[in-house]
């Protein structure tokens, strides 16, 4: 009898990712599970803002569209789908999933969902009780910004997801589950790993880490050899094949992309700080001696991941209103494109001074020259003088919306009133809300997470 193998795919890298690879892996990946991470640091704040405008918004609608495409096929093949697409409105995401299941007559389809990570309503009470929610970056107390708080969500781990799977869920939807917990939970559920089995838990977390950014593990954003990636127009996303003793990362052979030693090396340290202490709600993973080696074409083995005791507290991410910003652009052509763009920026700054703009911060960049590499960009005189075109960019950040608006009508007129040969594009800029993030911690026992099942009749 062959060793038990669990196959799990990473169907999304972020909110706004392409659905193509998820659809491909449901059709051709021989999956047991597909986990879809939708949440980056700011996503919850953006979703909360959407929900404030429309009580039925605040989750990742893209997830519903993926289920509409392949939910029925996944159900028939018994592929379980797990996602944190619920954002700040898990209940509405569940309603929408139920609609899809009913449209497809999926009788007995079980929707698992987790509630309790959204602490927005409890926060004032907790603060009254004396919890200070000290900002872990700068030591400030949350009371300083209490009137500007937008959202408050706890990063939680595997337990409530496992509970949904144990109750037979075909799909599990959550709010701010940690990205990698979406992958660890099914592995623990399948292999029955013990809570003290630190190394296996860490292995499951790192499977999640490698899969949670989708195409970044299979040839996307690949510095080592992006030209060598075939068919990036149908880039496959990574799939893990996990046994009790081994971990392989691969992809479907119906998709483009590559899984190589280097695609995984670039991803394994991505957004990691200390490799010996990668902190998640479920484990502190140690990848300081991790080994990545090609087993066969598009199949790479990961070895030597260790685990240490999980942290006592959970991370609580609070988003708050922190003012407004506007980004404006104007494009200049050769000759002397850079000189003209600089002159235009100068005009705008003088005008703004005259109009008494109160800005917290102002930034001027020149796209084509130094907007990305900033002070380390090559500003060689010959290069600069011969630029075919340069885009002036001025960005401002203000405390009030009215201040931010001051700059907006001033850009397009420079086509007629400034240096020659500019082209205004993209329409007038809009004021954007600035959201600040307040990282802090909360004791585990203060967070009451519940696992629920809704069965479609």
């Amino acid at each position, binding site marked *: 009898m062959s060793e038990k193998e669990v196959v799990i795919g990473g169907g999304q890298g972020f909110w706004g990712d392409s659905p193509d690879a998820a659809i491909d892996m449901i059709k051709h990946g021989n999956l047991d599970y597909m986990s879809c991470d939708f949440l980056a*640091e*700011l996503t919850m704040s953006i979703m909360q803002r959407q929900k404030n405008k429309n009580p039925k918004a605040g989750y990742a609608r893209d997830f519903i569209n993926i289920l509409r495409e392949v939910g029925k096929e996944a159900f028939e093949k018994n592929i379980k789908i797990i996602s944190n697409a619920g954002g700040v409105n898990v209940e509405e995401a569940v309603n929408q999933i139920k609609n899809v299941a009913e449209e497809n007559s999926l009788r007995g389809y079980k929707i698992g969902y987790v509630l309790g990570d959204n602490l927005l309503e409890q926060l004032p009470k907790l603060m009254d009780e004396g919890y200070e929610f000290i900002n872990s*970056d700068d030591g400030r107390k949350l009371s300083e910004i209490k009137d500007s708080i937008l959202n408050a969500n706890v990063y939680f781990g595997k337990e409530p997801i496992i509970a949904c799977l144990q109750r037979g869920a075909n799909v599990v939807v959550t709010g701010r589950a940690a990205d990698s917990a979406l992958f660890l939970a099914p592995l623990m559920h399948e292999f029955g790993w013990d809570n003290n089995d630190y190394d296996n838990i860490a292995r499951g977390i790192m499977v999640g880490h490698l899969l949670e950014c989708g195409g*970044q593990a299979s040839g996307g*954003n690949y*510095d*080592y050899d992006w030209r060598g990636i075939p068919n990036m127009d149908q880039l496959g996303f990574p799939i893990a094949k996990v046994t009790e003793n081994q971990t392989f990362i691969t992809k479907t052979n119906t998709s483009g992309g590559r899984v190589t030693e*280097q695609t995984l*090396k*670039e*991803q*394994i*340290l*991505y*957004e*990691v*700080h*200390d*490799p*010996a202490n990668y902190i998640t709600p479920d484990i502190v993973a140690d*990848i*300081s*001696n*991790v*080994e*990545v080696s090609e087993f066969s074409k598009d199949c790479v083995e990961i070895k*030597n991941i260790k685990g240490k005791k999980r942290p006592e507290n959970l991370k609580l991410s609070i988003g708050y209103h*922190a003012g407004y*910003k506007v*980004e404006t652009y104007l494009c200049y052509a050769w000759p002397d494109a850079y000189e003209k763009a600089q002159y235009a920026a100068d005009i705008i700054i003088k005008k703004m001074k005259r109009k008494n703009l109160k800005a917290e*911060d*102002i*930034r001027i*960049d020149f*796209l084509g020259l130094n*907007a*990305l*590499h*900033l*002070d*380390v960009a*090559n500003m060689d005189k010959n290069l600069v003088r011969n630029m075919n075109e340069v885009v002036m*960019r001025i*960005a*401002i*950040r203000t405390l009030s919306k009215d201040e931010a608006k001051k700059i907006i009508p001033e850009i397009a007129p420079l086509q007629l009133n400034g240096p020659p040969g500019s082209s205004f594009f993209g329409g007038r800029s809009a004021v954007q*809300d*600035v*959201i*600040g*993030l307040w*990282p802090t911690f909360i004791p585990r026992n203060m967070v009451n997470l519940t696992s629920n099942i809704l069965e479609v009749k």
Partner: protein
Amino acid sequence: MENFYLKEIAHSRSGDKGNISNVCVFARDPKDYDFLKSFLTVERVKKHFENIVKGEIIRYEVDSLKGMNFVMYEALGGGATLSLRLDTLGKSMGSALMRIEINKKEYEDYRKGVKK
């Protein structure tokens, strides 16, 4: 003497957490890893990013990957939304680091074992 860019012998990826940028750097050829470790010091990276990274820089070595991870504090102009940079998430910090120039003779001497 001729110089070449770090990108010729290394590859990288960068990511963000708040106002912290991390850049991981790997040797393209495992034989260059020792040179990279001796060349790409925290001091050199600090100097390269002197007007961009305002805080501390920590280097973690991962020998098993022939790579290093640079964690750079106060590096993104305020972090995700507070930053007015175009690249608020620092996705191009990796390639910005790859611009560091290496003296060809210094590199060849190191490879030949003429360590200083």
